[in-house]
């Protein structure tokens, strides 16, 4: 997957990229999961469907990642692979998406314990297209 971790004072971030916005969003999501646990230890046993909306592209990204944070924190669902099935951006700048997330129930015994993510933030958020490649920076509150 196309992501790397960003070194931020006190917290952690992800830089994700993709040929399309959809791919970059998927990479950001899997990158975020990699902060929580080692993705190699996660199996694709279950699928959940998530939806997100945002007032802007940045807002959509934050809201999407926070939806995944919610599913982990409330229900213990840890994802391995993300498939954004539908993504729409309106002329007003608003956007929405629907995604399937493949993963399983987090098990503190079997899965390594990385960072506890409180939320994806707007801090230092970057969504940009350079030379045909989308690049996203997201910083998480830990």
């Amino acid at each position: 997957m196309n992501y790397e971790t960003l070194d931020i004072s006190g917290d952690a971030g992800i830089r994700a990229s993709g040929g399309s916005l959809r791919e970059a969003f998927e990479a950001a999501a899997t990158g975020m999961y990699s902060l929580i646990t080692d993705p190699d230890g996660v199996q694709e046993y279950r699928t959940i469907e998530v939806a997100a909306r945002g007032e802007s592209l940045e807002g959509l990204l934050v809201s999407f990642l926070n939806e995944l944070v919610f599913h982990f924190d409330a229900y213990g669902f840890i994802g391995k692979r993300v498939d954004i099935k539908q993504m729409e951006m309106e002329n007003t700048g608003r956007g929405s998406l629907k995604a399937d997330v493949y993963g399983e129930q987090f098990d503190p015994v079997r899965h390594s314990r990385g960072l506890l993510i409180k939320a994806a933030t707007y801090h230092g958020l970057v969504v940009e297209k350079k030379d045909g490649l989308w690049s996203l920076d997201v910083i998480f509150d830990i």
Partner: protein
Amino acid sequence: MAVQTLRRIDEFRIEIPETYAPGMKVPGLIYLDSALGAGLEERAIRQVANVAMLPGIIKASLAMPDIHMGYGFAIGGVAAFGQEDGVISPGGVGYDINCGVRLLRSGLKADTVVPRLRELLGVLYNEVPSGVGSKGKLRLEAGELEKVMSMGARWAAGKGMGGASDLERTESGGMMEGADPSLVSLKARERGHSQIGSLGSGNHFLEIQKVDEIYDEKSAARLGLFKGQVTVMIHTGSRGFGHQVCTDFLEVMERAVKKYGIVLPDRELACAPINSKEARDYLGAMRAAANYAWANRHAIMHWTREAFMKVLGVGPKDLGMEMVYDVAHNVAKMEEHLVEGRKMKLAVHRKGATRAFPPGHPELPAIYKETGQPVLVPGDMGRASFVLLGTQKAMEETWGSTCHGAGRLLSRHEAIRRARGRSIYRELEDRGIIVMSAGKQTLAEEMPDAYKDISNVVDVVHRAGLSTKVARLVPMGVVKG
């Protein structure tokens, strides 16, 4: 944006003049001595300046000596807003609403606990859930989360956890008035439901400590502290419940910013006028999260007492594990303060800052009316934590606020890099500190070298008169998430 544009006012204060950045309504004021000032991050300075641009901010955008970069507000930030033209900003509270510290004293001397320390920590580690993906130990029945949200620690006390004297020794009596559960989203409830009664991860901890230095004998005696005594410190907050409330309301505030035409230098400062529906709604939900946190710390305190009694085979009387105090260091409160000689009700935001009310303040419980409010400042797991008291000077200069902790020095990544090839666990054990941690990574990230030396931070607030040192507590055993 050169650092030389900052002006050192005196030994303890640096001013960010209004000319530092366009749009600043008041100056910024950072409490720092020159030693700590050397490590001041440019981006944290900018954040203090950004807060100075918010509508209705009064006097100055303040920061305590444990300042470091946060989201929107810097960590260590304090700002007060007037009721007429001010704002409420979730970014001025933070994601972990009512993250705070609770200190328990005991009738035990450290040397009597040392032989049983490992066993004691093992029981605490099992009894108090911690770490990534852990669930809380309390099972809430239908409708009970509502009570947690509106009653806070009083709910826990009603369930047989702790007593009346514990509530009296908790900021706001462990229950913030004006909490409105109907404003809390289903998502926050879902996150909160499974996590109540858990420590969390990151910098949260449960620590068995020993009082190793007394600076003010008289006050220490009033607080029931003596040299060589065992104390327990609990540092945690409102868990996923509070994080979700913050996430939810940042979205609400983002819309409010457009609606009210507020110009912001940073999205994480999203806010709404104090008298708007959005601000009232946030405060109602924030107070529910604050209450959740107090219930959480109350439950953890209860299990701590049980663990001590079980392992040491003593009853509650011999254990003598009474609360010293419980402070919230991430919260917004409506408080009365003097502004140019006039009494005003202000919305005081403390984000990584501790309230430090002086002797005689009407909000203090009878037992602390003469001493002033106990201030609890946790350090890293290898060095020390401090007990201080609030002062009149803090009331006059910082809206009755002081520092909240050591403040990070190294990024998590850098800490892990420097911990490579070392056993932090062993290093601490060599210093007589036993650590139990759910995650290896957390231990490296939270190692002592990752933090500023708490003693330097506390010395600044002590010498600047924002709070006075009473006692130093050193760690004996630590449970980390």
